[in-house]
């Protein structure tokens, strides 16, 4: 029997409208605050070349100046300078840019690919076993170790760190997507679609992917925070970008040996990472609350 595209007569439940969940999101004050923080940080990072008071790579003789609010601080360097005399504020602005890029690219590529593989596994019983066994193998490999191996193989670069984080994100997302996909595949509308003779591609895209999308987005948004933390840890270990490019984890590492004497060099980038990850996690939680029908009904 040949498969034909027929008008769908048994429509699956559609995701709720964007406006509706957006309204629900805005009713949560914590979510609004987290979104504002994320938006503010993202804008500051985006406009770093215009906002940064100094060239982030330019050293000076003003070594380890404390932040402006300290006794010895000056308004010339609001967040102080590092051990090379570089302006910490400028480096944090540029560093945040890179940290966000690493988080977005790592969680986006890895999460996207993992989600796709998980849904394929849920959709095709034939591919389920092989895909999930590979995911299991990847899960047993710590992200830091994977990062070390990739950097050793391809050298120290932004691409290497994103690749490591993306690969590390695949198995987690694949597992979640398979779970979500399997429960969707048990729904009657899938059976109805198949009974109507819809193409596999149509069922996969219109029925499975569309209905799994909200759950997957929530997971990927929460994964974003984890990716930033792992990326910062890799940079802290010296596996991240090349100097003099600033990245928050790397900046925290650079202040490690002078922590007793100039704690701001490590504390300021570490706090920035903390705020970004916290805001991302709160946003992820809020997204789950508004997108998950079971949470909504509580």
């Amino acid at each position, binding site marked *: 029997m040949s498969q034909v595209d027929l008008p769908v007569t048994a429509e699956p439940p559609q995701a709720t409208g964007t406006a509706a969940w957006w309204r629900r999101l805005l009713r949560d004050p914590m979510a609004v605050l987290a979104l504002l923080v994320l938006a503010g940080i993202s804008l500051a990072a985006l406009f770093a070349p215009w906002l940064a008071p100094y060239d982030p790579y330019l050293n000076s003789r003003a070594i380890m100046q404390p932040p402006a609010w300290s006794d010895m601080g000056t308004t010339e360097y609001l967040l102080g300078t590092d051990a090379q005399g570089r302006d910490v504020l400028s480096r944090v602005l540029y560093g945040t840019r890179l940290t966000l890029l690493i988080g977005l690219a790592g969680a986006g590529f890895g999460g996207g690919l993992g989600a796709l593989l998980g849904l394929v596994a849920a959709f095709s019983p034939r591919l389920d076993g092989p895909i999930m066994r590979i995911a299991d193998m990847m899960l047993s490999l710590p992200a830091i170790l994977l990062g070390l191996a990739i950097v050793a193989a391809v050298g120290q670069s932004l691409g290497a760190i994103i690749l490591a984080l993306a690969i590390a994100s695949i198995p987690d997302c694949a597992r979640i997507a398979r779970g979500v996909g399997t429960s969707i595949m048990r729904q009657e509308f899938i059976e109805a679609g198949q009974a109507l003779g819809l193409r596999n591609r149509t069922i996969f895209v219109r029925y499975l992917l569309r209905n799994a999308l909200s759950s997957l987005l929530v997971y990927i948004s929460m994964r974003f925070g984890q990716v930033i933390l792992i990326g910062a840890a890799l940079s802290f270990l010296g596996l991240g970008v*090349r100097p003099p490019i600033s990245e928050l984890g790397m900046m925290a590492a650079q202040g490690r040996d002078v922590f007793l004497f100039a704690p701001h060099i490590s504390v300021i980038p570490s706090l920035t990472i903390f705020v970004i990850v916290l805001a991302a996690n709160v946003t992820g939680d809020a997204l789950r609350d508004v997108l998950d029908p079971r949470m909504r009904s509580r």
Partner: protein
Amino acid sequence: MTSKRNRLALATGALLCGATFAAAQNVTIVRELESNNYDPQKTSALAAAEVLYMLGDTLVAMEPDLKTLVPGLAESWDISQDGLTYTFTLRDDVSFCDGKPFTAADAAYSLNRLADPETQSPAGWRAGKVESITATDDTTLVYQLQEPYSELLFQLTQSFATIIDRDNVAALGDNFGVTGLNTTGPFCWGEWKPRDEMVLTRHEGYTWGPSVYENTGPAQVETITWEIVPEANTRVTALLTGQADLSRSIPYIAFERFRSIPEFQINKSDIAAWTEYFGMKMDRPLMQDIAVRKAMNLAFNQAAMVEDIYYDEVIPATTYMSTTTRDWNPDADPLVADYDVEAAKTMLDEAGWIAGDDGIREKDGMRLAPLFYAFTGSAPQARVEYLQAEMRKIGIDIQIDSFDPTIVWSKLATQEYDMYQMGFAYMSAGDGLNLYCRSENMPPPNRMNWDDAETDASLDAAMRATDDEMRALETGEVIMKVSEAAVWIPIYHEPISIVQSSRLKPVMPHSIQGTGFYKGLDIAVAE
């Protein structure tokens, strides 16, 4: 009742006094790095040397000036007219930690082991071209050379030449220097927990220490514990809280704080026999141009870096080695260019290196962006990032690839990079030049690929020289050559700085091999 209380108080007091006395007899030194073994002939690690000097003895000992030789296990020595035969008369009152008497046979075995190619000692070349090393009786050792070797006595003061017990080597096999080491030094092997601590115990019968010290033995403390503390902040805290007594690996940023606390003192050596430098591979396309190498020297401000990053605790290096070094050639002093950014820019302009849109220079389609292989770790990273920032000001974009200590040495043995960073200890100018400038030592340790027949000939002539003047002359020729070619950017010369608790008497810094404490015979609790 009162009498019972008094007795209790006395007993408690006695216990406390006993505990304090016991603690006083144990000294803890914190350090950053660990060695992978303590086999004297098979390791060149600084971390091994600083322990080996306390564990063992050498035939000849060295004063802190690194110029004056004094008797060690050898009471005296005689050199033949042709410079080929060294006859050592050894002490007859020396014994190993296990009580076995020391004889010339042990010395012959140890030095033959150093020279034997089968040992694969990283310091084998330091033994010279050996014809034979033989014990003619229990107290006489004859060291026969194929050709004169003017550095021999100096080399025999180093940790590689530590005298060991051949029975101990046979008994321990591959575990020699790992699970134990029977030696004649002021301290004996206690317990080694790799990457944690090395405990040394006093060699009770030791009385043959070199005249470098007022106390020639036994050692004045019962145990010395070398603790590995990789984090600089933790080392500082360990000293401040009394968990450690002394260290020579305290970051310079902490010195001001230690100087302000009466319970601590900092002792610095009079000489600076450790030099850090940036090296350039002469035959790489970007580094072939002497204008590039000279411009980089012009644009690097050693004085500012030392003031800003090293708080003036080290000496800005405007020479390839410290000018107080034996056989240094003062004619080379002005050869490292003074800081002048504008002159550096002009030099590059004239050499055809033109700045592109992003400010980085190019020539014949080559971007002036040398690849730099660096060590991870905050101190080396700080140095290389400083260089990078300075070079950007003249349009050179240094690309830094950093590697963990476990892989950096293998990366530095390749020919795939343009620049690197290294530090080294030396006893004489010839010591450093033989290591780094001999063509047979390419690629490591001659990582700049300095391949020059005249240099080899001069170094050979200096080695064979039988008088000090000739040796200094030949060595001086090489110093001039490499300085003129601008193969390095010297960074700083570093004296040894020991930070110590005033619970101890002042400890004299000793620069031999960059170690700091030498035999530790002056480590004592203050009264």
